[in-house]
């Protein structure tokens, strides 16, 4: 763990990345503590509809057209957004990195087969594919996660394959072969750790994309009808956009801030993991 | 040795690179001159500052990376160290041309070789399109490229490494330079191609009346083509001598050790017996930037004494421009004897 400390230092010295990390922590804390910080049920109609933000201290972010507390919606929505973002990305990363690593390492026919499979998922515009999947499988948190994972993995698979292809040719990998290491050991111990920096960065950015995708699906009314999410809130506020724009704007800002925070963290990781910047 | 005033005369050149740990001196007070029609070799191991010296002559070091901090670079009554950028551009690639180790990266991959040379010819010599093409063909012929007319329309990737280096040389010759700086021109090439390119440079030198400053790490190449040799170590010149003298009677311990450590392909090994161990130079070159009080080689030198670590060795000059920087330099004539005593020649 000799490397962890200077790594954190490098990361912390990067001002935007530190700000991103703080914002992200705040969103996570908000989501975790949602029931304590606001109403336990974000669907409950707790006040007069169309309370503008700031007009009633009990509901600092105001209420929507049904009198539901927007703050409660934002906090509970954070749970859904982060949950969907993390699980979908984890699933995509697992599938994508596995397929990419196998294709890159073995090459030849296996590579061809896996890459054609990957392309299959990339021919259809990804968002349309997600919509189709959710519609066929009935909207629920589970199917949304599945749909997002299904359209996110190909990119990670391609990146992993490219990295593995180049690292596979390095001589220390050949030396590992000559030592008699098994393929699995070579992939996991020699190749993937050296491919980690770009993969880590791109995976962190995939979390942001997943959150956006979830919001977009919910906005189109394809969200899970039983959970409050930011996309659902934006979607619901759409009809009153002219008279009460804040109903859309409040969850919109929440999405913006979270995605931005993750992007900042991702870029911070990129810089901190770049060995060329390490010496500075 | 060729007589006459030197074409290029470097005095006290120092070049620094900017790093996060402050300026690092890559070249630390070098004197070097190249006479008309002469081939001077600058040899040393990686990191000794030989390439930096060559780049400093044309001030090719990007400004954000480093700069020449002291010294004069006299070329044709001008001082290249202080010359303004516009006048310098007229000299680069015109009266001083340069070729590099890797011709593949020095050529534009998207232009035919003919177009690249013709562009240089038109730029520097003001020829028209047709005249430039004819001149280009003549240049390709001059560097002994077979079927030059066909090659004009080929792209760099269609040529072999040796052919590409020939094209680079044609490009360098396009302006009839007075000085050719060749930075490891044959290091990336196979030995048979290396022999061809070295012979070509030699012939062209006569034909075009050029002088050559050859930068290389390969002492055998130096022996084949150079008239005079300067040996560099850790940013400083440690010895300079006419080539035959340097090989026959090296005076600096570093030069002696370096010459001893190259395997001689013609050594009599007595029928398949295991080879004698090569004399080694212990340790390694100090990383650039470590300030050295005395002699830079003292750490690795077999005959270093206290004085070597305390004071920079003075320059000991002898006839025909030979010089050595060492507190314990082998005597001029006895150099060969001393080396023989140490069993190194």
């Amino acid at each position, binding site marked *: 763990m000799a490397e962890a400390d200077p790594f954190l230092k490098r990361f912390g010295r990067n001002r935007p990345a530190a700000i991103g990390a703080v914002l992200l922590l705040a969103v996570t804390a908000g989501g975790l503590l949602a029931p304590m910080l606001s109403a336990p049920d974000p669907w409950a109609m707790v006040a007069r509809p169309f309370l503008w933000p700031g007009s009633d201290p009990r509901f600092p972010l105001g209420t929507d057209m049904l009198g539901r507390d927007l703050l409660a919606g934002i906090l509970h929505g954070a749970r859904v957004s982060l949950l969907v973002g993390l699980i979908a990305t984890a699933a995509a990363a697992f599938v994508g990195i596995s397929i990419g690593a196998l294709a890159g390492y073995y090459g030849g026919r296996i590579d061809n087969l896996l890459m054609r499979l990957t392309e299959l998922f990339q021919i259809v515009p990804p968002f349309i594919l997600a919509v189709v999947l959710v519609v066929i499988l009935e909207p629920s948190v589970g199917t949304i996660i599945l749909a997002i994972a299904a359209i996110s993995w190909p990119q990670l698979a391609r990146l992993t394959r490219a990295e593995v292809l180049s690292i596979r040719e390095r001589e220390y990998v050949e030396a590992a072969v000559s030592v008699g290491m098994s393929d699995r050991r070579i992939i996991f111990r020699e190749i993937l750790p*050296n491919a980690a920096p770009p993969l880590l960065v791109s995976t962190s950015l995939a979390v942001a994309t997943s959150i956006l995708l979830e919001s977009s699906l919910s906005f189109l009314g394809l969200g899970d009808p039983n959970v409050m999410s930011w996309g659902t809130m934006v979607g619901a506020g759409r009809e009153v956009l002219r008279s009460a724009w804040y109903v859309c704007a409040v969850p919109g800002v929440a999405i913006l801030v979270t995605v931005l925070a993750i992007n900042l963290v991702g870029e911070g990781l990129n810089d901190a993991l770049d060995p060329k910047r390490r010496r500075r | 040795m060729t007589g006459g005033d030197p074409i290029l005369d470097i005095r006290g050149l120092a070049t620094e690179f900017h790093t996060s740990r402050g300026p690092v001196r890559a070249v630390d007070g070098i004197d070097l001159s190249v006479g008309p029609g002469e081939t001077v070799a600058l040899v040393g191991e990686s990191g000794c500052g030989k390439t930096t010296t060559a780049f400093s002559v044309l001030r090719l070091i990007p400004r954000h990376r480093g700069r020449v901090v002291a010294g004069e670079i006299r070329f044709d009554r001008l001082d290249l160290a202080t010359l303004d950028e516009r006048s310098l551009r007229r000299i680069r690639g015109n009266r001083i041309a340069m070729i590099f180790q890797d011709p593949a990266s020095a050529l534009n991959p998207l232009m035919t070789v003919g177009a690249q040379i013709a562009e240089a010819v038109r730029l520097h010599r003001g020829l028209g399109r047709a005249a430039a093409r004819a001149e280009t063909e003549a240049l390709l012929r001059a560097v002994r490229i077979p079927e030059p007319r066909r090659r004009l329309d080929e792209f760099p990737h269609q040529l072999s490494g040796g052919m590409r280096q020939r094209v680079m040389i044609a490009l360098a010759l396009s302006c009839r330079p007075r000085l050719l700086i060749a930075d490891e021109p044959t290091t990336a090439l196979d030995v048979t191609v290396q022999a061809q390119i070295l012979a070509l440079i030699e012939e062209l030198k006569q034909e075009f009346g050029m002088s050559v400053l050859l930068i290389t790490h390969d002492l055998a190449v130096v022996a084949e083509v150079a008239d005079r040799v300067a040996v560099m170590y850790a940013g400083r010149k440690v010895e300079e001598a006419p080539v035959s003298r340097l090989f026959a009677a090296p005076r600096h311990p570093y030069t002696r050790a370096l010459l001893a*450590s190259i395997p001689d392909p013609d050594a009599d090994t007595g029928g398949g017996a295991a080879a004698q161990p090569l004399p080694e130079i212990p340790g390694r070159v100090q990383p650039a930037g470590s300030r050295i009080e005395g002699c830079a080689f003292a750490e690795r030198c077999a005959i270093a004494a206290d004085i070597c670590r305390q004071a920079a060795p003075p320059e000991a000059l002898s006839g025909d421009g030979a010089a050595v920087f060492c507190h314990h330099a082998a005597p001029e004539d006895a150099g060969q004897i001393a080396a023989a005593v140490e069993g190194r020649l």
Partner: protein
Amino acid sequence: MNLVEATGLVKHFHTGHGAVQAIDGVDIAVREGETLGIVGESGCGKSTLGRLLTGLLPPDRGSVRLLGEECAGQSRRALRRIRPLVQVVFQNPYSSLNPRRTVGRTLLEPLAVHRIGTPRDRAARVAAMLERVGLSPAAAARYPHEFSGGQRQRIAIARAMMLEPRLILCDEAVSALDVSVQAQILNLLAEMKREFGLSYVFISHDLSVVRHIADRIAVMYLGRIVEVADRQRIWSEPRHPYTRALIASVPRPRPGRPKPAPVLHDDLPSPIDPPSGCRFRTRCPVATPSCAGQAPVLEKMGADHACACFHA
């Protein structure tokens, strides 16, 4: 006795422009305790041959017997058992060590893979090996980027030695090093050979180096061996015109010697579409029309000397 015996080796690589005939019919043996040098210009197939001889690459055709055991056509799993006998040291000291591993881990790994010794035992062996190659045992805790090129090459040699191999493939192992460091590494390799009774396959484009270290030298041209002999003989009595040209091209550290005119003028033909018959005939100073027909085979020219040329 022969450590490795290869017969009829063929290896083609398929590219977008056609099949590169990297190795096209090679028979060669590596004897117990010898250093076999392989020389030739870039693209002659010497690295491929090295990889075939050490089982790192499977041949398309032909047989590679290592201590009498056939390696060609074996599964990767079966090969893993033979692998410890043959190790490699590569050219590039910067890409031959895993940058994210300490030197100690890199050296332990071979022992761990083959479950040799207890953990304490292994650490002791790593320390001893580091010392043997001229590094401090403390080097085990450091990362590759903390070492110079020569030191990394010492580490690579230590790694190759961990499994007590019989044969080490040195693929341009000293080509990236400075002359003074190159001498250190060549001497280290020679010491290791004496001490552990190793054999080397030593591949290099630098004839002076090969001539220094090898007992026997094989000269390759476009995927075939054109001449093989002990190092003294190949230098003093080269029979193949290509060998002669190659030796004449080597620069000598003797200023003022009469310079021979370069013998070879054209470049290497494409290995995708090599000349018929003798592959050297397009550049050969003594070629005759008959050279285009049958390909010459290696023929014995006295003890320990074979040459593939009709006009040898």
